[in-house]
């Protein structure tokens, strides 16, 4: 079903989401990809503070292109999530509620999604120009030296995404292809 969701996202709202839902996200989300994850993970392991409060927040796995004059952000589509699999469970334990990326997740991430009441969403890969139009504000808040991999706070409006993995163990990547083939082989 289609849903509007607000970010940050409460655990109550996370519980309502089901694999296959088509959602439009409005509110504040954060970007982080490989290098920022590594740095946050290492800081947390050393017991140090990280530059954002993870509680109820959504991280978008994104490294945008630079904005031209007059643009909020450049091209802004999702990167492959599996590279963040090593780091994601710890972030979820620390309060992270949602992740936006593309592609399959590890069994460890999927079980952390269930255990910590989180949601994994996919945005359309390779549609960075289209998705950039949903971003109203973008500001680097940490790790500026990482360039495109810095952590950015984004204000988004109706950012479209699809629920891939829900907190009840639903996983659209495991069912969608079989469902399609079943439906079309029976025609």
């Amino acid at each position, binding site marked *: 079903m289609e849903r509007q969701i607000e970010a940050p996202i409460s655990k109550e709202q996370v519980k309502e989401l089901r694999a296959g839902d*088509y959602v439009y996200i409005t509110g504040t989300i954060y970007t982080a990809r490989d*290098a920022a994850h590594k740095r946050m993970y290492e800081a947390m392991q050393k017991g140090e503070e990280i530059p954002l409060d993870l509680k109820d927040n959504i991280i978008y796995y*994104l*490294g*945008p*292109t*630079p*904005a*031209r004059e007059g*643009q909020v952000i*450049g*091209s*802004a*589509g999702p*990167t*492959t999530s*599996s590279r963040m699999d090593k780091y994601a469970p710890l972030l979820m334990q620390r309060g992270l509620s949602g992740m936006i990326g*593309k*592609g*399959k997740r590890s069994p460890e991430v999927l079980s952390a999604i269930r255990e910590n009441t989180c949601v994994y969403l*996919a945005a*359309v*890969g*390779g*549609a*960075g*120009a*289209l998705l*950039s*139009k949903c971003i109203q504000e973008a500001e680097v808040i940490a790790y500026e030296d*990482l*360039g*495109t*991999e810095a952590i950015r706070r984004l204000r988004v409006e109706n950012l*479209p995404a*699809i629920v891939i993995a829900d907190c009840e163990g639903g996983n*659209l*990547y495991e069912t*969608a*292809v*079989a*469902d*399609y*083939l079943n439906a*079309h082989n029976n025609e």
Partner: protein
Amino acid sequence: MRTIYANEIIDTLKEMCIEANLQLSADMVDRIHGAAETEDSELGAKILSQLCDNMEIAKREQIPICQDTGMAIVFVRLGQDVHVEGNLTEAINEGVRQGYTEGYLRKSVVKDPLLRENTKDNTPAIIHYDIVPGDRLELLIAPKGFGSENMSKLYMLKPADGVEGVKDAVIRTVKEAGPNACPPMVVGVGLGGDFEKSAILAKTALTRNTNEHSALPHIAALEEELLDELNQLGIGPGGLGGRTTVLAVNIETYPTHIAGLPVAVNICCHVNRHVKRVL
């Protein structure tokens, strides 16, 4: 002997980097539009129509089609009667540097694979040189994103594995790539040569116009067969089910050793970018 100046190469490559990231070739645009019309999964059709909108916005507003503006892969065919005034490799890298900086493209290259410090200008490019007869310089740039590059594979098959082994290798690779490689994909296959030759052939195959089949009849038939079989996997746009898993299969071949059958499968997403210019 014809002289080509380094500055001309720099300016040309700079423009090529920017053009490649803002607009796909006509054959790729047609294939994506065609798939949007024939996709029979509702969600799949919606995703394909978003990809069509995305290409429009990219062109109109000069926003790169994809945020992964790639590593710059440059194929050079240098006529042996050309004299380059200046340093050719440096000119290519300078063109890439200027293109990625002035074109608002992402700098996605790290200096060392383990230390991972960004070079901040997307250099160096990966350059493949070929010396050919004549007095012209052909430059082809293919900015390659790594979501799909990471899902590419190389198999050293046995001659006895034959065409079935080749098909299995390609199908297995596409299945494993699944949603990670941003389907619908373009599949470049390098068949023959040795370990590294097959990989270069696979990348070259991605740069070929998708409307042109191999000139070898048995390879052209294999391209057709694989395209058909891959699109029966049901992976679909975004990996969420559908008939459009692969937009094209291009195969390039080279003679090989009596003991070998190398098969490289280079996966590209639907943002299969390449621009060619001849100086």
